[in-house]
């Protein structure tokens, strides 16, 4: 089980496009991936879930990955956040 704290670095926050990128990337991995914000946990593989978190600029999210490819999944998703989802 891997747990990491990620920060949203996009000015616009996590709107539809970054949410879709997170969901599509998460779906490539077998592991269960969840994102938690203020106690509310959503499945990262579902776009609606990721959007529903309403994570704006500078929001901190806790990512939890459990499964056979957890280390790869965790680092790929962390890289997504750091690269600001290729938006800026």
């Amino acid at each position: 089980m891997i747990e990491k704290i990620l920060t949203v670095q996009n000015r616009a926050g996590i709107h539809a496009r970054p949410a879709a990128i997170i969901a599509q990337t998460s779906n490539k991995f077998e592991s269960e991936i969840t994102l938690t914000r203020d106690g509310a946990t959503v499945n990262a593989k579902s776009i609606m879930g990721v959007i529903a978190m309403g994570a704006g600029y500078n929001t901190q999210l806790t990512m939890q990955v459990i499964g056979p490819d957890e280390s790869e999944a965790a680092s790929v998703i962390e890289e997504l956040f750091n690269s600001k989802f290729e938006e800026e």
Partner: protein
Amino acid sequence: MADKKFTVLDLLDLELSGHDALDLKCIAGRRGLPRAITVPELNRPGLALSGFYESFASNRVQIFGRGETAYLQKLHKEKNTDSIRNFFRSQMPCCIFTYNLEPTEDFRSIAEESYCPLLQTSLTSTEFSNRIIRVFANQFAPHQTLHGVLVEVYGIGILLSGHSGVGKSETALELVERGHRLVADDIIEIRCVNGNIILGRGANTVISHHMEIRGLGIINISQLYGVGAIRDQKEVQLIVQLEDWNASKAYDRLGTESKYKELLGVKVPVIEIPVRPGRNLPIIIEAAAMNERLKNMGYNSAKDFNQNVLKWIETGEAQTVYNGNDDSY
């Protein structure tokens, strides 16, 4: 799960109408509005005002009806402000005056000094108490967020659950097409309001009644199918677990044993449906809903079937004893 505090300000801001309306306004102590209401209970502070503080439930919302207000008038005539100062020593969330009654000037100014909000309602004490207890039941109900799709089929609230990509949203879309209703897709918030009912609804009003279909993207069901295709909340009465067909797994082929899953302490029936190309899931789910309705009315088709089979076998054996293997009459 971390809960947002329910403050006195939140109570004032609630949008309630008709028989649920509380008709509250803040008449003093505005600085105390961010105080949190931590317990879903009320207290009539008669004993405390008269000086008896044992078991004083100071963490509850205090209700001032006609009796309490008359007592405040008496204290005012006696120029007694000590009782009131003692009263406000505890940090109660707020004091609510019913029947549009007004507090005395002493009470009002000491409340302002202690930052305790004073609210007023036109309702009678009894009616107000009934309504606010209902509000508390809603606010303080245990809740949880689930991943799945909540639909209403033939009046039965069904939660479709399963891994991403198994086909929950697509199945729900076809059910909507067939005339059933979508409650929420993906993020379902469930609440246990009175100990044996689980109410489900979309966790987020902004994205509610939208669905994500791979290949299509995000679609708005209420615009595409109309108001008859959506519902804001529904009791979760059946859970359908969709999973990829597993050849080595023994799926339920009789239906006589009911399996249950516990959600917030309430047992909800579960059925597991294997998914495979060519299997018509919406039809299976409609049949499951109708079967559930029948079970709720007291008829369990599978058990009746087995009873009939048992009777048939018994009469068959009885006839064999009489007639033996000889078919002649």
